[in-house]
């Protein structure tokens, strides 16, 4: 069976492949992000850094939601584990003095990935046995469990205090330099993610998403592939978490909480889960709006709640979904209604 065709023939607008749109959006974002520090002040450079880190986090979540078709409400646990792994190595290296070498800094950042991957392996081992709402609830339960462990284990994690003094080495204390560090790492991570979702493994994920039972009947051990994807998603979330600690100079258990997981869900819905670039676009909308709205009102939760409501009701495919629908209408109008299939054939799967 041709999995690519199977995936491309779905009629659900949320599942339609939109590779070319993602490529165009990513190319545009690359240029914008590259040039951003030249035109933005320090505050907005920090907002842009936040966009990149949380965008990576949301993209990692979308490997589970958009590509595998399962929703995780505990994904922040891996973001938090990555952040804590980096923070604890920082603490070991600096001995509380705030002096860290460049090598130690990069080793600390790298440590976030294996710890988060290990956490994802443990959690995933149990979660992949279930699908749908049961999968979601189990991820939530494990997420809260890990949150509680970090929150309560004072002697090891610092409890609710978290860990402070995560000052990067001198060069990266400059917000612009830290921004470019995140930019390079996030671009590299996205390139790896792109390769993964466009590999046979990626198409297998889509097949499982569209019809897991049929995929199993083909002789594929879906659990193994779900677990592998869960671990990959957890690793990228861990990388995002690792970048977050030195950015805010501290970590706290709330990074592992369900509310943080909710941010990844929001971002993905805002941008469009059917698109590779969707979560990053969602991160831009969410983070920029947050920075803008909190400048003049304390009612941020009300604002984002209203936006999510509008998106879910009127554009369930997110912003990129709306853009794509508009493009399709225009194309159809321009070619007497025969363009729909042409479009699908022209655009590789996202």
């Amino acid at each position, binding site marked *: 069976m041709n999995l690519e065709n199977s995936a491309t023939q779905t009629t659900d607008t949320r599942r339609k492949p939109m590779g070319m749109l993602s490529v165009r959006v990513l190319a545009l974002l690359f240029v914008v992000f590259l040039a951003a520090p030249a035109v933005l002040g320090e505050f907005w450079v*920090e907002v842009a850094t936040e966009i990149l880190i949380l965008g990576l986090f949301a993209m990692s979540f979308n490997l589970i939601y958009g590509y595998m078709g399962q929703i995780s409400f505990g994904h922040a646990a891996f973001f938090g584990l990555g952040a804590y792994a980096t923070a604890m190595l920082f603490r070991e290296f600096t001995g509380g003095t*705030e002096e860290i070498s460049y090598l130690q800094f990069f080793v600390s950042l790298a440590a976030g990935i294996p710890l988060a991957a290990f956490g994802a392996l443990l959690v995933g081992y149990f979660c992949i046995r279930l699908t749908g709402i049961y999968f979601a609830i189990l991820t939530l339960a494990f997420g809260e469990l890990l949150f509680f462990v970090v929150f309560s284990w004072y002697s090891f994690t610092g409890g*609710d205090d978290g860990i*402070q003094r995560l*000052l990067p080495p001198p060069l990266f204390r400059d917000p612009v330099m830290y921004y470019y560090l995140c930019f390079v790492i996030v671009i590299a991570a996205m390139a790896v993610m792109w390769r993964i979702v466009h590999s046979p493994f990626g198409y297998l994920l889509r097949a499982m998403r569209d019809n897991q039972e049929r995929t199993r009947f083909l002789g594929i051990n879906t659990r193994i592939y779900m677990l592998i994807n869960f671990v990959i998603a957890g690793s990228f979330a861990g990388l995002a978490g690792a970048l977050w600690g030195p950015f*805010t*100079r501290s970590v*706290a258990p709330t*990074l592992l909480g369900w509310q943080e997981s909710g941010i990844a869900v929001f971002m993905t819905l805002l941008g469009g889960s059917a698109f590779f670039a969707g979560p990053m676009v969602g991160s831009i909308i969410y983070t920029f709006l947050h920075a803008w709205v909190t400048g003049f009102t304390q009612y941020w939760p009300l604002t984002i709640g209203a936006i999510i409501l509008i998106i879910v009701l009127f554009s369930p495919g997110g912003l990129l979904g709306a853009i794509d629908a508009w493009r399709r209408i225009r194309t159809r109008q321009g070619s007497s209604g025969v363009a729909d299939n042409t479009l699908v054939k022209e655009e590789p799967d996202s």
Partner: protein
Amino acid sequence: MSSNMSDKKWDSVLRSMDRREFIRTSVGAGLAMFAPRFASAQSGKPYKLGLLLPVTGTGANYADGAIKAVMNATAEINSRGGFLGKHLIEVNYRDTHTKPDVAAREARDVINRENVQTVVGTYSSACAMAIQEIIHEQKILHLAATSNSSKIVNENYTPYTYQFCPNSRMQSGSVVVAVAEMIKKNGWKSYATIGQDYEWGRQTQSGFVEALGKASSSVELKKELWFKLGETQFASYISALMAAKPDFVYGAIAGKDNRTFIQQAKAQGMFKRISYPGGLISVTELQQQRKSIPRGMIGLARAPFFAHLDQPLMQKYIKMHRAKHGEDAYPTDWAVMHYDAIYGLEQAINKAGSIATEAIKTALKGATIDTCRGRATFRDCNNQLNIPAGYVGAVKDHPDYPFPIYDLDTMIIVKAEDVWVPTCGDVQKLQKKRA
């Protein structure tokens, strides 16, 4: 004023202190925020203040009074032309949601976007420590007026943070002084503790246990219970405490959880069987639970207005507060501490003759300032203000107030010097080097 004031009237007082009032105050402050932009050319540049407190999360119960205090104090100073008579104060408020990562983000926001020169806040100690990382790096003053983990001035010390409330070590030490007397008097042999499972709760409980061990070595700790912030069902905890049959229970509980715990413990009859001395019973609890709070219960307050009615600044503040919020309204502990922070800042600016951050920081170092709680001096080695460490007293009705206060005849006020880290040498051993 009569103590048997009608409920209707009192409810109207409480209503005047709800979030609607806060919103109105915020709008007023917002207008005040823009006023400096239209000030005459002769006035100096505005002084920008960042206010980070939660209006959501467990700390919201206390932050309301604190926000009002800052708005009222800044409005009063602005009516005199601002700091030094020419620098009008702009207040930039952000909600920390009682979450450290949000607090750090909002601190960055007000510093880098609004260019604030001083950050006031916040409620949770974990949030305060996250903020400390940002303000230290950016060289911005930080006035901590509610968050009181002793780590803020010791382990996590930065010369840019000034502590206007008694820290957790001082607070638990003050309870120990009072409880040690009761142990002697009542012949108590054992006790149990219950606390919020977060930085402040842990610090306060461990400080109490450690100090009580030294003050009364014969008394045995039978049980320690911890619960998550925001707990709403205490039945199992209360049953466990009663089953342990201690002579007394010490609670390290603050905020909305404190109110819930007291109500549920009373309903289960815990206070009839076990003494509960030294739990946090601030003016907020006394006002909000004016009917239900057990009379005779021994509580701890941080800055109760009724303990310092002789102080000119307290008199001025109460007058201002009642004028703004109604004759029957009195400032909470949290409001008093924030009011002191703003006037402490003003005194430092007057002393420095400048609004430059480094000049103010230097002026505050070791400074003696007037506060609602009397004249007090910042400790040189960690910027802890030597205001009273704690007020321990029995809840009692008073004819002058529409809510109970502490029995003023038996209330114990513990001096800071009696219970804080004994010497500056000891403090410096705790402090870690910063870049």
